[in-house]
């Protein structure tokens, strides 16, 4: 499996509900980032959490990081139709060539 795997691959919920996406990774990281991609567009950076942080908030976004389990979750509260997009976690690895490694993404659909 790849560094940075999201779960689930697709998620469909009703507007107003909370959406939770998970990310697992394999190697030691400096930080973990979440990005959003609207259909056919570039990625937009949402939030970065460092390896020594456990939780971070930004507006309706809440990210947690558990380095012992090598996992992270992204929670979007009170979802809106505009949140419909693909969400990617990306880990900044510190072994070998330092680089950002992206997962395959979770496709989130918010139904009105």
């Amino acid at each position: 499996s790849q560094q940075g795997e999201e779960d689930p691959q697709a998620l469909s919920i009703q507007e107003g509900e909370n959406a939770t996406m998970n990310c697992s990774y394999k190697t030691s990281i400096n930080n973990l980032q979440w990005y959003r991609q609207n259909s056919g567009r570039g990625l937009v950076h949402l939030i970065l959490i460092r390896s020594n942080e456990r939780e971070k908030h930004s507006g309706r976004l809440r990210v947690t990081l558990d380095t012992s389990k090598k996992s992270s979750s992204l929670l979007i509260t009170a979802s809106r139709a505009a949140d419909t997009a693909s969400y990617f976690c990306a880990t900044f690895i510190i072994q070998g060539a330092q680089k950002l490694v992206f997962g395959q993404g979770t496709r989130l659909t918010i139904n009105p």
Partner: protein
Amino acid sequence: DVKVTQSSRYLVKRTGEKVFLECVQDMDHENMFWYRQDPGLGLRLIYFSYDVKMKEKGDIPEGYSVSREKKERFSLILESASTNQTSMYLCASSSVKGGYKEQYFGPGTRLTVT
């Protein structure tokens, strides 16, 4: 706001043609990256550059080359386009200052090779 622009949103080329994809960023970022994105495979790093005239191979450099003659511009070159290079190409930039590694992406170029 950081702005990353790519020369084309859509591009159609024939097999064997030489293809240039241009990327420009306006925030004086040191680092620039080229990715390709394919369904089921996510984003894969092709090449990156930490400084002018410097380049490093990413995970899938075969069939590609890059050029960075100016700090703000990073070009991806397909020497002889092939159908398996049909993909979405994304350029990104980031600054090493402040220790942040968040990347700013351009809108992408959807390349079709026929």
